[in-house]
Structures are given as structure tokens and as C-alpha cells.
């Protein structure tokens, strides 16, 4: 550690850092623009100017940029130096010469970093009398709105988009005070992390285009700490609501998980909460017609179905909270509770947990993944299946080249100098997949093959690392590649293997497990990361219950069936689910949106979404995280677990009936499943008070609390109670930083924008004070003696007349919820099947034409796409986008050109 002097007082600093980082960490209000905690310093804006003195005798000093000044031993700076103060105000003045005075009509107002820095520097008088330069704005797609007149040329956008996220279709153009940030021509931004521009941009140039449809100021929003439900990674979010409508989702900093960035699906996929297809009242189906009924009537019907019955089965959900799943399990009894996940997928998840627990490899957080210096991806397409992971892997490729720049004594935060010295060098990243991925541009080598061939490669890598691992009969190029991969992993300090649920192949999980085990034998500190499809796939799997197939077997004897937040048509093929519905007696469905299951249910209970409930989800890392209710929904909507509690009361189940608040279930859960009792550490209990107060969900400037209900009743209503958490539905409460799991939004006096996050961290870009939220439930164990997996699959052999249909995903549309957002639906691809052009020729399929794909008992008419890099004999079918749901892949199937549609035919067209 070094001693530095700021305004003549000594402070301890990290000499590997710069003086802006140090000042902000210490809580000084030093303004800046172009520096970013995740992207380092470039010295462009000149806003962070301070006076530097050679020693205590130097009275003259000179102006330097704090972000470019190392915090070396003895460094002396003055923030409150008259020249520095004057200069910083001058920088704002310079930015203001061309800046439109848009604040009243600009979306950024109220959370604008430029506003904050302007006030902070004290510049308040316009001396520039000439006119301002203006631009024509571009259409950049449905996510990001552009208003270039507001630009202050800080270059953060282009640095994030190109340098951090690897995007190519966005750049800076022109020069002087005319610099333009945009595309070469109007068009949708291609990068899957483009939405981060709205937070990275310190002014209102890039703003959330979806928020514009229902705009609200930050200070008028009600927030809560929440978790993204669109994939299994568990990124932390801050959704904001007003007038009962979810307005937007922004990133919530979690230093271990998502850091500063979200993917576009997580940011923009929230509109399903506001969808007209929301179920807002209980529905009772009589004579085939679903009618809205009152809560009392719904519960009366439920009692009829359930009271006194011994054989009620419950089907849980990988997207419902642990508490809701547990409530259902307790209600129907563990022997009658089933995971709402198909057998093969459930087996896969179980295997992942087994591997993670039995190999010494650590399951890393996303932050740890960024620091891995050699990576093998087996069979995953992270950009489309677990997007935030792809962004983390892109950073990991920078690790190994740091060794050279460290040697040249270039500080890591001196961003452009590091990138210049590194040029195109990258750390080792090997991607084995069925087709090209969006990470291929940074891959050292890519391997294309059918799932079994990818698994065989993995097994061969393990063998190359440790002769004790099972042999494979790989030959030629594949063996050479396996050796190269093994060498790269062995030479690294923090090697990582990534596999997961993408290809639905147990062999891939086993192969990844073998590589991790072999790395351990080779004395390496290995990491093993598995991706999972849903936000609580891991949690449901950890509960260790029987899969959906067992539920289908049990349904014929069941008195009633309760399905929790699960569209069974998405889990299994139509013929199977049709049969299930025919056999199910008294089907009760709890869900938020109409779907094929609610359409068949006799009783539908309106469940709250993530924004209207509290609960715990377990991410693919094994991190239990709590999401909190953002707002109390209008109408008949209630949290799933509360509905299940109500049903339990009907059945005179005293244990369940006694659950009054969320903590009651958490305690019951921890008692019932001690191995997962760690979920109690995901967030503080509801009774926590800070200086006697709750934590406010609303900023203290929240307006209109009285007026917004005045048309109904002029007397201001009492804000709703929240018995489930230490948060309040109010702006009143504890004003300072709460425990990190309870932070609904970031704010500090003078820092209204997201930059206020700096002051919640122990150290900039480090953990939040008190630790980042979440409790890890899976730690690698000592080896359980089970040894290597030995079932090395045979090499893939194409079949005559059949194709191995494998699943492919798209970030927009493959999940259940995101398509309800118009912006996402606009970008979601149409259902399609991709294949090697030679296969297309064999099948007489032309690109862009329609093909009929028959697989797993279903038939789909989809568009044909050609991908020259795909292995022959394999076809990649986009799954998740209706009607291609519930199909179990990989499976052998047939393809042929689609016949012209027959009136009333049984097939579904895409």
C-alpha cells in the first residue's frame, strides 16, 4: 500500500491504481466523465483535473488528470485547489457550448451524470453566445434511442461497444466538436449488449427506447432489488414501477455476478409484466368457458377440488421461486411433488450438481470467470443461452496478454495503452459447438461437431491432461486439438471449463467433469461452470425431486393437479401434454400469463411476476439470491406462495396455514432441506430495521403520492405494508446505504445517476460494502472417490435419410417471457432450421424456403438457413420460439421441403 496526499492529508492508497479511483474510493466528490470503473482511464474529457505537487515544498504545482496519475507512494494532489476548481468548471463550460438545454424534456434528467457534474463544478453562467452544432439522429433499433445533439464526446459509448463488448457496427466519425457516435448507416445495433449504452452514456444521447413509451423520471419510480428471470445466470436488476406499470429495468451492481452490465434480453424483456395477456383475476372454467370469478369463489372451487383428497399432485417450476416450489411441495406432500422439468433435462441438472459437488473444481462467479486465463467451452453458445456469460468470457480473453503489459509496466487501468500494446493478442479460448457462435471472433480455435463429437473432444482433453482418464479413439486433427487445449489449460493459472444445458447432452457434462478432474490431478486450480436454462433450474434441481415424467405417470390416479408457474407445453411435446391434460382431473394452474396450460386449467389463479412477488432463486453458479416485490399489483394478483398458503388453509394444513410472511417459508424450507439452509443468508430477514426504519423503495423525491389517488378518494391512502421484507412501499425510511441485498436503487447526494454506485462499494469496482448479495450453496468438495466418467460416446455417424436435430437458441425469443416485449419480438428470428449447404442440396432445400421438420413426435414448418460451418448430418432447430417448444432434442428426425398447406391440416406452420 502507498501513502498519498489529497488536500494535504495523508491517505492509504493502492499503488496499482490511479488517483481518481483512489479519490472516489475515499468518498471525494471528484467529477469525471470518460473514466469508467469497468473500462479504466483514457484521459479524454479532462474533467477530473487536480493540482499535483512535487513535494510539500512545491507551492506552484501543475494541473494533471487524476484518472491518469498513478497512486504511487508520495503522490500529492489537491482537489480543492483554485486553479483545479476553475479548470473543472471550465471543462463543463466547454461541454455546455454545444449542449442543448434539454433538461426538462430529456429522458436522462434526474439521473444524468452531466447534470450532477455541472452542479458539482459550480459552472452556472453561459458566456458562449454563438450557435450550437446539431446532428441528424439515426434509428438504431428498438432498444436504444439516439439524440446526438446532447453528446459531450466522452467516448464511453464507443469504448464500451467496440472495446468491451466486441461490437463492430458502431463507431466514432468526424472530428473536432462534430464527432458523431453511431452506425455507418441507420439500422438495428447488432451487439447483444447494446442496451448498456443507456447507462454508460453520461448524458441523454443514448436512452432506453422502451422506457420512452411509458416514460417516468427516476425519482418518480418505485424500485426493489430484483433478479433477472430470463436465464440461469441470475443477474441483479433494479426494475422501476409507477402507477402499477413496470417502466424499465436497469442494472443493479453485484460485483460477483453481473457487475455493471446486463444483456439486452434482461434489460428489455420486462414488458410481459404489463402484457394484456396477464391473468389479473381468478378464472373458473365451466362448460369449457373460463369466467373471471372473485377470490372467494375461486377458493370455494379449490376447496371442492382439494379438501380431504389424499392424492393431489403438484408440478413445480424452474422459473418459480424456491419458496413457491416448496409451498407446493409441502401442500401436496413430497411424494406427490414433481419438478416441472422433463426427465432428460432434470437428469442433466442433477448430474451437473453431482459433478460440481464431487470434483475439486470451483464453480466460479461471473467475476471470477472474467479473470480466468484459459477457457474451454464445450457445446455451449453462451451469447444466446447465457448471454452475460459471453460478455464475461470476452473479458477473460484479455487475461493472459496482461502478463506482457505488466512487464512493460503499463498500469492495467491505462486502458488504451494496454490495448495498444496487446494489439490482437488474446488468451486461449477454445469453443467446441455445433455451429458458429458470436464469441468465435476471439476464439483461439473453434471445433464444430455433433454433440457426441464435442463430448469426445472433451474426454480427449481430459486424457491428454491425465493418462488416468479414459481413453478415446479420436484421431488426427481432433487429437492434436485436444492436446493443444490441454496444454493451454495446463499452462494457465485459472483454467475454466464451460458446459451446460444447451445441447441437452449428459456426455458433455461428463466430459467437462472429466476435464476438471484431470486439471486437478495436474495440480491446477480449475474452474467448472455449467449453464442452465431457467432462472431457478438450479434451485429446483437442488430440491432433488422427481421429474415431470413421473408426474405424468401419476396423473391418472390423481384427485387434482396443481401446476405452478409452468407452461407444460414448453416442457414436453404436444402429444404428451395433450394426453396429460386429458387425464388431469381438476387442474389448477397458477401463472401470470395465459398459456397452453392455463387455457386447459379448470381453475386459474393469477400469480405475481418477479416484480410483484418476493422469493429466492438459485443461479447456475449455485448462488441463492433474493428478489423483492417492486410494487403491489392491482386486481386479484397475489404471490404464488400466498395462493398456495390459501389452498393449504382450505385443506386445513396447519403448517402452511401458519405462513404469514416470506420468512416463515424460508425458515420452514431451511428446516426441511438443511443442505440448502444457506438461502437464509441471501438477504436479511424482514424484521431488520436500520435506525428503527425500513428501507425505502422510492427515492425521497418521489412525487404525487397524494395526487395519484385523488380521483378515487381525496384522502391519501396508507402505503401498503410489506411484511415480507425490510423494504417499505414508500419514500420514507432509512436514507443511507442498506445491506447490499436490500439496495433498491443507487443514489447519493449530488450523484443522482448510476455513477452513485461508486459510493456503495468498499473499493471502486469491488464488492459492495458488506459483501455482494447472494449466498453460494454449492462448494466443490473433496473428491467423492467416484473417479472419472467412463462412458465415452461413439463418434457421431450420420444416418441415411435422417438428420440429428440439435437445439439452437436465440437471445431474443428462445425464453418464455421475452417475446412479450414488442422490442424483443421485433428482433426475434422466425423459427428456422440450419444445416450445412451440402445437406440442403441433398434434401432439395433452398435457403429461405420452408422445410418440414419431423422430430420427437411433432412436425414443424420452418425456414431453411444454411451454415457452411455445420457438420454434415446435423440440423440445428431454433427452439423456444413458438411453435417449436416442448420438443426434446437432440433427436433423429426427417427433413423435407414443406408441402403446400392443407386446409385444417394437423401440422402447425411457423
Amino acid at each position: 500500500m502507498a501513502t498519498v496526499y489529497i488536500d494535504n492529508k495523508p491517505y492509504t492508497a493502492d499503488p496499482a491504481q490511479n488517483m481518481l479511483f483512489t479519490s472516489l474510493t475515499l468518498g471525494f466528490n471528484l467529477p469525471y466523465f470518460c473514466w469508467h470503473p469497468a473500462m479504466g482511464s483514457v484521459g479524454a474529457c479532462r474533467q477530473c483535473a487536480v493540482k499535483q505537487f512535487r513535494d510539500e515544498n512545491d507551492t506552484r504545482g501543475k494541473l494533471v488528470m487524476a484518472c491518469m496519475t498513478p497512486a504511487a507512494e508520495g503522490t500529492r494532489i489537491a482537489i480543492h485547489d483554485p486553479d483545479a476548481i476553475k479548470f473543472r468548471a471550465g471543462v463543463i463550460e466547454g461541454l455546455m457550448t454545444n449542449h442543448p438545454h434539454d433538461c426538462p424534456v430529456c429522458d436522462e434528467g434526474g439521473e444524468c451524470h452531466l447534470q450532477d457534474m455541472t452542479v458539482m463544478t459550480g459552472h452556472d453562467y453561459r458566456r458562449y453566445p454563438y450557435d450550437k452544432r446539431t446532428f441528424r439522429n439515426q434509428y438504431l433499433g428498438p432498444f436504444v434511442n439516439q439524440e446526438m445533439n446532447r453528446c459531450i464526446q466522452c467516448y464511453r459509448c464507443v469504448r464500451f461497444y467496440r472495446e468491451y463488448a466486441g461490437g463492430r457496427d458502431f463507431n466514432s466519425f468526424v472530428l473536432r466538436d462534430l464527432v458523431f457516435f453511431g452506425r455507418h448507416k441507420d439500422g438495428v445495433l447488432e451487439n447483444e449488449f447494446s442496451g448498456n449504452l443507456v447507462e454508460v452514456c453520461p448524458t441523454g444521447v443514448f436512452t432506453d427506447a422502451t422506457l420512452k413509451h411509458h416514460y417516468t423520471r427516476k425519482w418518480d419510480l418505485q424500485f426493489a432489488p430484483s433478479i433477472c428471470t430470463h436465464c440461469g445466470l441470475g443477474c441483479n436488476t433494479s426494475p422501476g414501477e409507477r402507477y402499477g406499470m413496470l417502466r424499465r429495468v436497469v442494472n443493479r451492481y453485484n460485483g460477483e455476478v453481473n457487475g455493471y452490465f446486463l444483456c439486452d434480453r434482461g434489460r428489455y424483456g420486462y414488458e410481459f409484466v404489463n402484457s394484456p395477456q396477464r391473468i389479473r383475476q381468478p378464472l373458473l372454467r365451466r362448460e369449457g368457458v373460463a369466467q373471471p370469478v372473485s377470490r372467494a369463489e375461486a377458493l370455494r372451487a379449490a376447496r371442492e377440488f382439494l379438501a380431504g383428497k389424499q392424492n393431489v399432485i403438484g408440478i413445480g417450476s424452474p422459473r418459480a421461486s424456491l419458496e413457491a416450489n416448496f409451498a407446493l411441495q409441502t401442500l401436496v406432500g413430497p411424494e406427490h411433488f414433481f419438478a416441472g422439468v422433463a426427465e432428460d433435462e432434470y437428469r442433466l441438472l442433477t448430474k451437473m450438481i453431482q459433478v460440481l459437488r464431487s470434483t475439486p473444481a470451483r464453480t466460479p462467479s461471473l467475476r471470477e470467470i472474467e479473470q480466468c486465463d484459459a477457457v474451454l467451452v464445450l457445446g455451449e453458445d453462451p451469447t444466446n443461452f447465457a448471454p452475460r456469460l459471453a460478455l464475461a468470457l470476452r473479458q477473460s480473453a484479455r487475461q493472459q496478454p496482461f502478463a506482457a503489459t505488466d512487464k512493460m509496466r503499463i498500469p492495467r487501468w491505462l486502458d488504451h495503452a494496454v490495448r495498444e500494446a496487446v494489439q490482437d493478442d488474446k488468451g486461449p479460448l477454445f469453443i467446441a459447438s455445433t455451429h458458429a457462435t458470436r464469441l468465435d471472433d476471439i476464439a483461439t480455435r473453434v471445433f464444430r461437431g455433433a454433440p457426441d463429437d464435442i463430448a469426445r473432444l472433451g474426454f480427449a482433453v481430459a486424457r491428454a491432461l491425465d493418462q488416468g482418464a479414459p481413453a478415446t479413439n479420436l484421431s488426427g486433427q481432433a487429437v492434436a486439438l485436444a492436446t493443444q487445449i490441454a496444454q493451454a489449460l495446463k499452462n494457465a493459472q485459472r483454467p475454466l471449463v464451460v458446459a451446460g444445458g444447451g445441447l441437452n447432452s449428459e456426455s458433455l457434462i461428463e466430459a467437462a467433469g472429466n476435464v476438471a478432474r484431470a486439471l486437478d490431478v495436474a495440480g491446477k486450480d480449475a474452474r467448472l461452470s455449467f449453464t442452465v436454462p431457467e432462472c431457478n433450474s438450479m434451485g429446483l434441481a437442488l430440491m432433488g425431486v422427481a421429474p415431470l415424467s413421473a408426474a405424468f405417470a401419476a396423473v391418472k390416479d390423481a384427485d387434482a393437479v396443481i401446476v405452478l408457474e409452468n407452461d407444460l407445453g414448453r416442457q414436453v411435446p404436444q402429444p404428451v401434454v395433450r394426453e396429460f391434460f386429458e387425464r388431469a382431473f381438476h387442474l389448477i394452474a397458477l401463472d401470470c400469463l395465459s398459456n397452453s396450460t392455463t387455457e386447459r386449467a379448470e381453475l386459474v389463479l393469477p400469480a405475481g411476476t418477479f416484480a410483484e412477488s418476493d422469493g429466492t432463486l438459485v443461479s447456475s453458479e449455485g448462488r441463492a439470491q433474493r428478489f423483492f416485490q417492486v410494487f403491489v399489483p392491482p386486481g386479484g394478483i397475489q404471490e404464488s406462495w400466498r395462493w398456495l398458503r390459501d389452498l393449504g388453509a382450505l385443506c386445513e394444513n396447519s403448517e402452511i396455514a401458519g405462513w404469514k410472511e416470506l420468512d416463515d417459508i424460508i425458515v420452514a424450507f431451511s428446516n426441511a432441506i438443511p443442505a440448502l439452509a444457506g438461502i437464509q443468508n441471501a438477504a436479511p430477514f424482514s424484521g431488520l430495521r436500520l435506525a428503527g426504519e425500513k428501507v425505502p423503495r422510492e427515492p425521497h423525491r418521489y412525487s404525487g403520492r397524494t395526487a395519484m389517488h385523488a380521483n378515487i378518494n381525496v384522502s391519501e391512502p396508507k402505503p401498503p405494508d410489506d411484511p415480507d421484507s425490510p423494504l417499505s412501499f414508500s419514500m420514507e425510511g432509512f436514507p443511507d446505504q442498506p445491506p447490499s441485498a436490500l439496495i433498491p436503487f443507487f443514489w447519493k447526494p449530488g450523484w443522482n445517476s448510476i455513477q452513485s454506485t461508486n459510493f456503495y462499494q468498499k473499493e471502486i469496482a469491488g464488492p459492495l460494502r458488506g459483501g455482494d448479495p447472494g449466498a453460494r450453496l454449492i462448494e466443490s468438495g473433496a473428491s467423492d472417490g467416484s473417479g472419472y466418467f467412463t462412458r465415452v460416446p461413439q463418434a457421431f455417424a450420420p444416418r441415411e435419410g435422417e438428420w440429428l436435430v440439435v437445439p439452437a437458441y436465440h437471445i431474443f425469443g428462445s425464453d418464455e417471457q421475452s417475446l412479450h416485449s414488442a422490442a424483443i419480438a421485433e428482433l426475434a428470428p422466425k423459427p428456422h432450421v440450419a444445416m450445412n449447404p451440402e445437406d440442403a442440396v441433398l434434401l432439395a432445400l433452398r435457403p429461405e424456403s420452408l422445410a418440414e421438420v419431423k422430430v420427437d413426435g411433432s412436425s414443424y414448418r420452418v425456414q431453411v438457413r444454411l451454415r457452411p460451418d455445420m457438420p454434415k448430418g446435423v440440423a440445428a432447430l431454433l427452439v423456444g420460439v413458438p411453435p417449436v417448444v416442448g420438443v426434446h432434442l437432440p433427436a433423429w428426425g426427417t427433413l423435407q421441403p414443406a408441402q403446400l398447406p392443407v386446409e385444417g391440416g394437423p401440422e402447425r406452420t411457423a
Partner: protein
Amino acid sequence: MEKPLTQHVRPDGEMLDLRAYEAAGGYQGMRRVLRMDPREVQQLVKDSTLRGRGGAGFPTGMKWSFVPMGPDAPRPKYLICNADEMEPGTFKDRLLLEATPHQLIEGMSIAAWAIQAEVAYIFLRGEYVESARRLQKALAEACEARYLGRNIFGSGYSLEMHLHTSAGRYMCGEETGLLNALEGKRANPRTKPPFPQVSGLFGKPSIVQNVETLCNLPHIVNNGTEWFKKLSRTADGGTKLYGASGKVKRPGLWELPMGTTVRELLEEHAGGMREGFRFRGLLPGGASTDFLTEEHLDVPMDFTAVQKAGSRMGTGTMIVLDDKTCPVGMVWNLEKFFAQESCGWCTPCWSGLNWTERTLRALEEGRGRGGDLEKLAYQTWFNAPGNTFCALAPGAAEPLQSALKYFREDFERHIREKRCPWK
């Protein structure tokens, strides 16, 4: 008086081809140097007191000493000639490029050997089309003669040399802006450290030198350091290509001993002011230098003396201001250039130069108001060295701050009279 750089410039304006260059003693320096240890060559240049002729005047030998040498040095290393002569008022490199391209090639080869570079680039101003043509020809001749390429002069040393014509913009003449432009990136400058000697072109050790600097090298090698030092009148060795433009009788270029005085240049070589014009001041080294006036005429034109007089020698090509030219208009013309050439990276430059230009425009067009001169003075403080990311804006401040100092009354007349009194 010896004029090593220009002694063989052909009076008919044609270039010296390879044969003529060699007949005049060309490439002897390179042959000699190939028999010396590279570090010896570095020491020789250090001892010669040669300072960079591009404007900054950094000691050349010292610059080279920071290049990592030896078998573990990163490779390839690069030797780059900055032929992007775009400083307004400067046209000295153009003479050397058009008249004696082989002198440059030889100088570059000597420098490349001294730092053990494998690849060399000439980064040429795109508008210098004639220089481009002649350099292409000279490079082809040198390649054919095996003076460039593999195993040059049969020495075992290989050196590739390429000509790259710039796509435009003044910032490409800034050392690190040049490196970025050569890499195909936007011509924004880089921060130093790390210095180009450590992380330069494509992240590798690189040396960037001006045309005139490099042209001195064959002569230093052939004639020695004492000879070089004796050419000068001051402590900075060698000759200097000086120039003058403006309303003088004989605008032009002259190779003279380093340290020739302003008066000598102005009166003896440029012939003094044209009939009917009186001298008011001059920018000694191109647009981005401070005015010198009557009181400074006996200042020797070398790096140290001009700096002591409150200006910079820069490129040594003087722009002369006469009494019939409005100083405000002149400075406005220069600031228009600087504002346009701002790369747009750092706030004081892209915002301040625009503001400066607009204010001067207003003054010239009779729309000046009280407070304008204070705002202009503020901009020169705001854009001081260190406050900006590179030297462009501080350079732009130099003519402005000195004009405000020496010609303040002229500025004030513009405001008082609501017009330009020279129109």
C-alpha cells in the same frame, strides 16, 4: 559556408536519382555504419548534439537510447519518418523530399540500423503528390540496388522500407497520432508513457523522426561530431533549414548555421519587407509559435534562445506579419485551421478552439463585444500544456496569447470601432 543538406539540390528542380546521389557521395554513410556496432552509432548521434527538426527539438541520440536492444527486444522494431509536414507556414521538408529523396532514405537506413529496426515507413502528407512520386522512384531504385530489402549492401542486415501517404489531417503529424493513423485507426494521439520506444507502431518499439533530422545523419556519420558541431553558431549542432513567408522581398528557404539570428534571416536572406510594408512581428517556427517582434530581431534562431525570448523555434520557417495585414485576421486564419484540425478527443481543445475561432470571427466581422478579449485570454490559459491531451491546442494558444500581448490595441480597436480597421 557548408550546406550538407542542400548542397546537391539541382537548380533545375529535378530530383537527385540514385546514380547522381552516389556520385555526390551518397550511401557512403550507410556502408560505414554497417561496419559499426549499433550502439556506437547511437553514441555518435548523441555526441553530435543533433536535435529533432520537427518542431520539438528533442535530442535525437537520447530519444534512440530508450529503444530496447538485444536479442530479447520485442520485434519487429520500426523506424518511421514523419513526412506529414502540415504546420502552416512550413515547407522545408518538401524541398528535401522532392530534391534529395535518397538522402532521406539513407538517413532512415542509418537510424534503422542504430536501433536495429527491421521495418521502416515514410508517413507522407497526402497533398505532397510530387514528393510521393519521387520517393516511389527512389525507393524502387534503392530496392533494385539492394540498398533496401533483404541483406542490404551484402551486410546480412535486412530492412524493408515503405511509403505510406496520409489520408489527411494535421493530427497525423503528431508522433502518436501518426502511429495510430499508420495502424489504420483514427488519428487520435496516445498518452505517454508508455513511449513509442517501448510501445509504438502495433505496440512494438518505434522511433519517429522528422525528415530534416534524418537527412542530417549521413553527414554526421561521414564527417564526425566535431564537424557537425562546428557548423553551428550555438550549442545545438548542425545547420538548419530556415524559411520565411509573408510580405518579404524574397520568401524562401535557406540552409544556414544553426543560431543564425532573426534579423539576418529577415533582412539579409529574405531581403527585408517589401516596398511599402513595415515589419510588425513574426511567428518564428510556423503557426503554433509565439510572436516575436522588433525587440527580438537579434535573437539567434536555435531552440534555447528562442525559448528564452518567450517563443519556440519550432520548424524554423517564419511567418512574417506586416503593417497592412490585420493581426486579428491573421490569428483568426490560424485558429480556424487549429479548430478544424482538432481531433475531437479532449474537451479544452475541441470546445475551446471552436470558441476561440468564433470569437475572432466575430471580432473581424465587427461583432466583437466587451469581455471577448478576456474570454480569448481565458482560452489560452484553459488550453495550456498539460491541460490538454496533446500539444495541438497549446500550440494554437501560442500565436493568440502573444498577439494579445503585442497587438492588444489592434484587438481593442475591433471592438471599439465595431469593424476591422484594416478593411
